[in-house]
């Protein structure tokens, strides 16, 4: 399994260790399982999947751009339906099975992050950031308790969790703006604006920490950032919805 990253360019790493996600070239094609994925466009990229008969992908239904008429759609059984709905996550996750072609995109300038997952990996992704995942990847969600009252008035912040058991799989995310990744050493910490968080290895701990400053009229808003503690990868996006603060 490959990820489509160009091999003839140097890594772009900032002085502090953030590595830019490789910008996929227009019309890049790569394989997963017995299917192929082609990435089209660069401003708001489209992932076009050519599914073989034994393969399938799942996704949030509103990211489906077009599909062959013959491609059947079904829904994925997800646990915790009411909790998911109250948390603002998609209640129904849709599945497309091969053979046939199906294409996906989200509606903002950004880039696709292609993450091939080997067996035994766990990855947490911010809600509404995943574009599609291959059917061999298990899908669940986790609640970040520490950020609950800070970000969503008490209902909690949820993340999608993707797990591979004995088979590899392909996960594609859409990051708004540019996407940067950094690998934290054990115990290493970084403070991230919660709206900029995109994904992390599940081994990375995420907690809300209050900053020693206040915002808003009369300074009634407290400012919180997400403290990420290694080991593991952390991915951020440079365009985000600012989770201002709490009163």
């Amino acid at each position, binding site marked *: 399994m490959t990820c489509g990253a160009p091999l003839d360019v140097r890594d*772009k*790493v*900032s*002085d*502090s260790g*953030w590595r*830019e996600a490789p910008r996929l070239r227009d019309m890049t094609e790569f394989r997963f399982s017995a299917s192929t994925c082609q990435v089209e466009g660069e*401003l708001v990229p489209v992932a076009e999947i050519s599914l073989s008969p034994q393969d399938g992908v799942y996704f949030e239904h509103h990211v489906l751009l077009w599909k062959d008429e013959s491609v059947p759609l079904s829904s994925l059984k997800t646990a915790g339906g009411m909790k998911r709905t109250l948390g603002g996550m998609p209640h129904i996750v849709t599945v497309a099975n091969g053979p046939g072609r199906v294409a996906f995109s989200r509606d903002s*300038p*950004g*880039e696709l992050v292609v993450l091939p997952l080997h067996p035994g990996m766990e990855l947490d992704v911010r809600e509404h950031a995943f574009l599609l995942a291959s059917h061999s990847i298990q899908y669940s969600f986790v609640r970040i308790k520490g950020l609950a009252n800070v970000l969503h008035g008490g209902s909690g912040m949820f993340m999608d969790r993707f797990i591979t058991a004995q088979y590899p799989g392909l996960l594609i995310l859409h990051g*708004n*703006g*540019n996407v*940067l990744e950094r690998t934290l050493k054990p115990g290493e*910490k*970084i*403070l*991230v*604006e919660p709206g*900029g968080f995109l994904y992390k290895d599940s081994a990375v701990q995420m907690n809300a920490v209050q*900053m*020693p*400053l*206040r*915002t*808003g*009229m009369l*300074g009634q808003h407290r*400012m919180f*950032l997400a*403290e990420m503690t290694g080991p593991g990868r952390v991915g*951020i996006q*440079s*365009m*985000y*919805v*600012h989770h*201002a603060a709490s009163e």
Partner: protein
Amino acid sequence: MNTYVCRYCRQPSDPSQPTCPMCGAPVDIRDAVSDSGWIEQPPIRDMARLQFGQSHVQIAGTTVPVAEFALAPQDFIYFSHHVLLWADPQAQLGNMSMRGGWKRMMAGMPLIMVEGRGPGHIALSDNHAGEVIALPLQQGQRMWVREHRFLCATGNVRYDWEATNIWYDTGEDSQHQDIHYPMGQYGDTFTAQDRHGLVLLHSPGNTFIRDLRQGESLLIQPSALLYRDVSVRAHLHLEFPRNMGFAFWHARWSYHKIWVRLTGPGRVAVQSVYQPPEDSEAIRNSSYTTVYRW
């Protein structure tokens, strides 16, 4: 003696570097100039570094670029809290209070700036596809910037704000008037105090700059203005096309085009993403305005 001056930031620079160390503009490219004289501001190259004091800032990304500061212990920057993307735990973040809080709040401007002090890394980004524009300022140099375009400034740059004095009001009578500020109610001004300083802006879309001669003027979309030398004057200009369309039908309607006239001398910069002002209602009163009827 080095006499090279960067074409884009107009500061003495180093031609031996691939990018200007003051503003990040590529040194080794030809000017892209339109027939009418607009110079396209080249985007700062991915991972380019800009030096200031003992610190530097590195620009990462090209769609929504991130400005990643490596701050030395004696340096600090300030910014609006909503542009903070990430920070080292050891970087010190604190409040920087601003004067005129009530007026700033009424105008929708940030009330409180955040001060970030070294040593440590702090990264900032805006929320629109576009470019980071670096404005290095010589000691004593002052620059006017459209509100909400400011990303951050180094600690030695003084931040003030002033009314744009460009407005018009519409409405049926004095009881129901709506005041419009097509270029924003207030503009930001930045002045480098004891030594040279650096201001970073975020410009949605592409950016173009032009030098106006003494007395030379041009008309632009009010919300497209990004920054200008303080020597450039600005006022409202209305154009009434010859064909009024259906506007004659009702006294409240008017068929006109709203511009801002900029008059040199000085440098002006525009962004290619803007919001056209509402131009269907009759204007009852306005700031100083010139009018042309076709």
